[in-house]
């Protein structure tokens, strides 16, 4: 490995670095003007890149409806294709702002990041539906002829990309520092009310900023796609290094953001070089995977921990609204009714419906973990699937590899989940809110690639077997006969129900306890909680432990349900989807988690839609994404609380009308 080689690889990393930088500057722009951390930035940039690629190969514009622009699927020229891609990106920016973020202008950071994850899920779903999940070759835009620089030969486009980033950054810096538009944007961000009084149109300013960000993302997405790979998940998850760069730049400094982006690009490229070296750790003859994903996470964790402040800088007059968390009521009757319904359903339903019910119950357990960490304490964690995965993989290892008998594997698995969740709670004591969301997202990616997808400690690309539950020689699994009933049997469904019931009652109990009150106190006002002597760190730790426990139960049951665990099931995008579904159902209540369970993919609702309306399961992610966006805007407390409120209002009206009716009859 020579110095030239190292230099060459670092230069090759300029392409990836430019892509990260372009997206990250866009991230800074939207955050500064509207306070939105746009985690959909990677997905929307990918969309532009896909559209460009489609235009260049078949001349068809995909909106998603396909519009052929050329006769006989002739490829379109590079410039018109680029122009259309940019126009599309601009349109996507305006549309996102007007339809999603403008209605949420006064909402809290939770609502904004959930809405943004809804956009991510929607765009990602559209891409997968139209182009599939496999990598697509992206046509080159910039010339790729090799050029010599400092004695090494690298493709020309890397240099052009890097140069373009520098120019764009300088332009942005000038724009926001010296022009009327830039100063107005900063003024509006500081004080919405103030700028309205000054006669500035916040709507126009903010949509212009969204256009700038979206165009930047689209431009670099199209230009840099050939240097990386056009694949929906990879591109969408670019948001992790992008967020790392933007966070290190404090979501305000373009310079630091871009420098960090190029640094990450160089590191990324160097890791690729090192992976080919004989000294690099090998697993099954292949270089240790996941190191690339681990890098941004470690950088983030260390920087946030060192820079983290123990207390908020400024107390807002009104705490950003969180979904309501009313005290649970009618728990006993609800549990009894639930038990009767579920047992009857398990006994009477056909196999496919039973599986949908089991998926719903599993999803509900996972949503309960979001209720505790996010709903009660206000900590946004996107690593819930990683925590569940820890439980699943440890269960597999203890049960199958170490061959230990039944209660041990799940106990060890759940313990591992609690430990993983506690690991995430360490930074949570120093950082808060959106920073924690970003850190857990990065952690989720790292866990999936470095642990679950690792042939050594995880299972690589194949699933790891989970030995079924066996009690006194009787096997309880979805595919095994139970108590003489016809196979496949409903015994496993009962196990899942009992677990769900236990978890739900636990969360109810926590909500009613003094600890629960302290959790909600921390959520409303961390400062006031501290000032009244509440040990905020201990409360957060307790919440993460409990969230870990619940996610662990879900992870273990997943393993049993599918008789195995695989890395793709515990990925960060699944975490985001689950988080969205939990917020959709209602993140403040147990009933919200149960509603969330109904809405999970392969759960009851989607099974019904598929069975009755013949809409394929491929469309589930699209509906989920749209539903998340609509709920955050229309029903911020979640479906469960809105339904309960609606029912109460209806009862009131009904009662009043009956009273009036009685009076009317009396008069006649």
């Amino acid at each position, binding site marked *: 490995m020579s110095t030239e080689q190292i230099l060459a690889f670092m230069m090759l990393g300029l392409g990836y670095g430019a892509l990260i930088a372009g997206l990250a500057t866009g991230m800074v722009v939207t955050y500064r003007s509207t306070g939105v951390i746009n985690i959909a930035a990677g997905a929307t940039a990918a969309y532009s890149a896909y559209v460009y690629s489609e235009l260049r190969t078949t001349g068809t514009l995909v909106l998603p409806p396909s519009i052929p622009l050329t006769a006989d699927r002739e490829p379109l020229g590079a410039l018109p294709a680029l122009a259309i891609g940019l126009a599309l990106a601009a349109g996507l920016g305006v549309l996102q702002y007007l339809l999603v973020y403008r209605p949420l202008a006064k909402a809290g950071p939770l609502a904004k990041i959930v809405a943004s994850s809804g956009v991510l899920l929607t765009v990602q779903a559209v891409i997968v539906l139209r182009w599939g999940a496999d990598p697509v070759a992206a046509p080159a835009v910039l010339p790729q002829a090799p050029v010599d620089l400092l004695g090494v030969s690298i493709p020309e486009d890397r240099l052009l990309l890097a140069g373009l980033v520098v120019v764009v950054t300088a332009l942005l810096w000038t724009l926001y520092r010296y022009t009327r538009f830039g100063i107005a944007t900063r003024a509006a961000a500081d004080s919405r009310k103030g700028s309205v009084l000054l006669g500035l149109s916040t709507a126009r300013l903010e949509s212009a900023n969204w256009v700038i960000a979206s165009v930047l993302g689209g431009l670099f997405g199209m230009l840099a796609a050939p240097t990386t790979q056009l694949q929906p998940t990879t591109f969408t998850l670019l948001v992790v290094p992008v967020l790392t760069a933007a966070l290190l730049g404090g979501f305000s400094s373009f310079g630091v953001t871009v420098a960090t982006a190029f640094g990450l690009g160089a590191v990324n490229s160097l890791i690729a070089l090192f992976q080919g070296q004989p000294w690099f750790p090998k697993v099954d003859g292949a270089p240790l995977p996941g190191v690339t994903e681990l890098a941004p996470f470690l950088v983030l964790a260390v920087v946030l921990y060192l820079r983290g402040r123990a207390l908020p800088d400024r107390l807002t*007059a009104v705490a950003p609204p969180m979904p*309501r968390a009313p005290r649970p009521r009618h728990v006993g009757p609800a549990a009894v009714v639930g038990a009767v319904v579920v047992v009857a359903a398990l006994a009477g339903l056909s196999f496919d419906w039973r599986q949908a019910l089991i998926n719903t119950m599993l999803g509900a357990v996972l949503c309960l973990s979001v209720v505790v960490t996010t709903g009660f304490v206000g900590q946004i964690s996107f690593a819930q699937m990683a925590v569940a995965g820890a439980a699943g993989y440890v269960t597999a290892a203890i049960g199958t590899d170490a061959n230990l008998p039944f209660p041990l594997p799940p106990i060890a698995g759940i313990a591992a989940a609690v430990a993983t969740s506690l690991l995430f709670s360490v930074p949570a004591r120093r950082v808060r809110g959106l920073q924690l969301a970003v850190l857990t997202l990065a952690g989720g990616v790292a866990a999936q690639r470095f642990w679950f997808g690792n042939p050594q400690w995880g299972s690589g690309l194949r699933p790891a077997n989970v030995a079924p539950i066996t009690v006194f020689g009787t096997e309880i699994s979805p595919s095994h006969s139970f108590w003489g009933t016809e196979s496949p049997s409903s015994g496993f469904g009962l196990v899942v129900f009992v677990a769900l019931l236990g978890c739900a009652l636990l969360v109810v109990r926590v909500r009613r*306890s003094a600890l629960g009150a302290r959790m*909600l*106190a921390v959520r409303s006002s961390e400062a006031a909680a501290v000032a009244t002597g509440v040990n905020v760190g201990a409360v957060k730790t307790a919440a993460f432990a409990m969230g870990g426990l619940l996610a662990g139960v879900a992870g273990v049951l997943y393993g049993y349900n599918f008789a195995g665990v695989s890395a793709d099931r515990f990925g960060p995008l699944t975490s985001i989807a689950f988080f969205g579904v939990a917020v959709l159902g209602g993140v403040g209540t147990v009933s919200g988690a149960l509603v969330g369970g109904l809405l999970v993919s392969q759960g009851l609702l989607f099974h019904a839609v598929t069975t009755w309306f013949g809409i394929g399961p491929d469309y589930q992610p699209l509906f989920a994404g749209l539903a998340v966006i609509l709920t955050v805007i229309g029903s911020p407390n979640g479906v469960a609380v809105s339904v309960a409120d609606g029912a109460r209002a209806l009862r009131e009206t009904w009662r009043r009308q009956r009273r009036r009716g009685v009076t009317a009859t009396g008069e006649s």
Partner: protein
Amino acid sequence: MAGPLLRAEALCLHYGGVRALNEVDVEITPTELVGVIGPNGAGKSTLLDAITGFATPTSGALTFDGQDVLRRRPSERARMGIARTWQTLQLFEDLTVSENVRMAVPRRPKAVGVLPRRGGERAEHDALARLGIGGLADRMPGELSHGQRVLVGIARALAGDPKLLLMDEPAAGLDGSERDLLGEILRDVVASGTSVVLVDHDMPLVLGICDRLYVLDFGAVIASGAPRQVRNDPAVVAAYLGADDPETRDEERLQPSLPTEGAR
């Protein structure tokens, strides 16, 4: 009783180039009501933050009850007996009024955190009754008027039986009778043995009920003493009225800070 309850010596706090506190000396003795006044941005709230631990002084000394507390965490200071209220109240909006107050009732040592604290109910009831809002115990803060919310904030601060209560603009947004009630409550709190530091722009209230005043301007104490003395102090008159253009300065500086969104 020997020595002051709280003593701040040469307290400095800089945010970047801004000197929010500059060599501030403050002394609070047991059972006295001390007012802190000064124009907007004079450092009043920062002083409260520094005493409670929400802001870290750049230099200086801070002792409470004879102990050095400068490096103690805010929650530790709270448990030592320093309570505070906020201009923005910072009530726990998801908890009932009684739960809000219970949060501040000290737990008995070794009590298991998950179990409800039975002993706390008495103290919580007392704290509410003392402010005449016992009837609101089961209501949610969001359902109350601003005046009632202010009282809940005070009840919560008093529930821990603090030795020192720091209040940040409690009178903002209150009407005349509510302000009078607030004054009575504060005198009553002091009479029962708790010292109070009152930061407020409401001059009649502050001058009427405080034993002693500190006047801050640009982060420094420019005057202190009994209300009567302070009112006639030339430095105070200058700070409030300004020397250059009395007419406009007067309006700018004597104006109470705008009521916040919390004030309805």
